[in-house]
């Protein structure tokens, strides 16, 4: 079956430009997560969506970052006025639910963002 897909796979942008990263979760998964992965560091939690509940945005590093999830499926992470420190791999994951013993997260391949 289809896994989590992300697009684009690579994005090179100039400092100050806005970028949009897209995530298509596994069909039927109600929980969706965005992470940032920098070289040599652990995954950094950004934002979490669960069904129709208000998202947990506590991990977003600044107000330049925002995300939405339309119709409980596709999600878009937007970074405004990109900075060089935003360069990283942005990973999206989905799971059937959150908590319990079945919250295995399935990851997409990530979007590598490079800000020049």
């Amino acid at each position, binding site marked *: 079956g289809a896994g989590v897909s992300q697009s684009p796979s690579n994005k090179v942008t100039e400092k100050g430009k806005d970028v949009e990263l897209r995530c298509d979760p596994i069909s039927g998964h109600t929980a969706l997560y965005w992470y940032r992965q920098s070289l*040599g560091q*652990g*995954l950094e939690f950004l934002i979490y969506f*669960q069904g129709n509940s208000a998202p*947990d945005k506590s991990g977003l590093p600044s107000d330049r970052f925002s995300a939405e999830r339309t119709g409980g499926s596709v999600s878009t992470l937007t970074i405004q006025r990109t900075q060089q420190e935003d360069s990283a791999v942005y990973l999206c994951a989905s799971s059937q639910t959150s*908590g319990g*013993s079945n919250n*295995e*997260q399935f990851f997409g*391949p990530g979007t590598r963002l490079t800000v020049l």
Partner: protein
Amino acid sequence: EDQVTQSPEALRLQEGESSSLNCSYTVSGLRGLFWYRQDPGKGPEFLFTLYSAGEEKEKERLKATLTKKESFLHITAPKPEDSATYLCAVSRMDSNYQLIWGAGTKLIIKP
């Protein structure tokens, strides 16, 4: 402060040479500990979840164990295809979705 530390940062082994990766954690109330494998250019792939001290899980050449302070990922007679970065993460009892991640151990198996 909640923290997950993995060691070593990198490990090179000969094919067939068994070893262990370590994940030590400090967390206020452990809900679960997760092991993932990540290949270059790909997202992490789930391996195991452990919930209580003394628990063990196995998959092919991998066995994960858990104590109150750390987890080990034992790899027996590894093959080159086991080369990857292995990530450890923990979840807290007061959060059923947030994971705290270690930086990973890069494992290289030489033929």
